[in-house]
């Protein structure tokens, strides 16, 4: 004897309708959102104050306020200007990666190892101090890792704000904890992969080609494969498929 096991069209429709029936939002959800509007952080003000130094190989110093030494060459001047521009876009939530190179050469060996590892933590993700220590082959040097990160000469571009304590605590931050919280929040609300609805091309957020995209053409994707599944192709300039593998 065979029993009827397949679902009728109506049965599936009904269960979908029930499943997606709107549930009322908490009464204070909108009020909480409005409270969030009163936020006085101005990325452009922060970016204006920032001083950047570069060698011909890459960025060597980034500091909010203070004085930068005059650039040694045209090449280093160009790099510093580019870094400032990218920093501004990053703080505005329009960039998920930095394309300017970093010059680690002036650093002590241990700090260099820590910062080079930290540099590879993807946008929007976090690691623990202990894990960084482990990955550079010095699992007991957790505190030293913290110190090396605290003296990071190129904060934000070398994302030491993505390193947290193993218990989820924030740890410290050279530029002050409020900025660390701010940067982590910023990375939570900035997407990484964005497609253009008119060209059907998917880019990393911050790709020079994607910058020209109109606001109402932006569609966020969770992976390059998802984008492909609905007819988008990866950009040949920023190569999002390579980036998401790291």
């Amino acid at each position: 004897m065979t029993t009827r096991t397949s679902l009728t069209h109506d049965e599936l429709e009904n269960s979908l309708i029930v499943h997606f029936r709107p549930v009322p939002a908490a009464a204070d959800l909108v009020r909480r959102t409005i409270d969030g509007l009163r936020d006085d952080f101005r990325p452009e003000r922060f970016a204006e104050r920032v001083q950047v130094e570069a060698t011909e190989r890459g960025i060597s110093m980034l500091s909010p306020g203070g004085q930068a030494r005059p650039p040694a060459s045209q090449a280093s001047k160009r790099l510093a200007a580019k870094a400032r521009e990218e920093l501004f876009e990053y703080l505005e939530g329009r960039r998920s990666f930095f394309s300017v190179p970093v010059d680690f050469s002036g650093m002590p060996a241990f700090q260099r190892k820590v910062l080079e590892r930290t540099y590879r933590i993807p946008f929007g993700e976090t690691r623990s101090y202990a894990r960084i220590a482990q990955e550079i082959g010095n699992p007991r040097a957790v505190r030293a890792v913290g110190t090396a990160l605290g003296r990071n000469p190129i904060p934000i571009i070398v994302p030491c704000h993505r390193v947290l304590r193993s218990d989820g605590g924030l740890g410290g931050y050279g530029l002050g904890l409020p900025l660390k919280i701010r940067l982590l929040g910023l990375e939570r609300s900035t997407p990484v992969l964005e497609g253009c609805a008119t060209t059907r091309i998917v880019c990393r957020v911050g790709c020079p080609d994607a910058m020209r995209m109109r606001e109402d053409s932006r569609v966020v994707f969770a992976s390059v494969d998802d984008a492909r599944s609905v007819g988008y192709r990866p950009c040949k300039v920023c190569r999002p498929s390579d980036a998401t593998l790291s």
Partner: protein
Amino acid sequence: MITDRELMHRVAQKDEQAFAELANRYSARLLTMAWRLLGNRADAEDAVQRALLRLYLSAGSYRSEWAVSTWLYRVATNVCVDEIRRRRSRSSLQKAVHEEAGDGQALLFPWGGGAVRGPAQNLDLQRALARVPLEARILLALRYVDGMSYQELARVRGISVNTVKSQLARGKMILRAGLTDRRRRPRTAVRIAKGAGE
């Protein structure tokens, strides 16, 4: 009643009252969509807040040939999709930890659906939905939360109407297959139980 478009133009001039009104009109639908995609209320509320903030900040670039609802759903799905991306990269890190802890939930509810509560929860459907590819799942959510047309869905996700149709059909096929599986299993169990009793 003031139309969505009028409200939106007032939001562009940083009118908080208009923003509150608009947010209230859509909060339940946005919350449900986000909840069904993200699997738990806390993350869904967070996503809705972020979407509404984004709406407020980008109201200046709103162009009136868009229906406000379409614009708003575009913003909200963008936020949810990026949250799912973040989870995927996180889960590849945490997978080993979960498996070690014997956390079967992670296998049943890869999208964190283990914490789903709320009215009319249908675990079978939930599990079947988890197997539907993300883009199709988003379209299903939008279609059933707000009864959007194929054209609107195409606009929200920036894809062609034909892709919308084929994705929805494929999504439902996977759902049907998943739910049929589920049905068969309990019946077999009952039959075996009966057989044992005789």
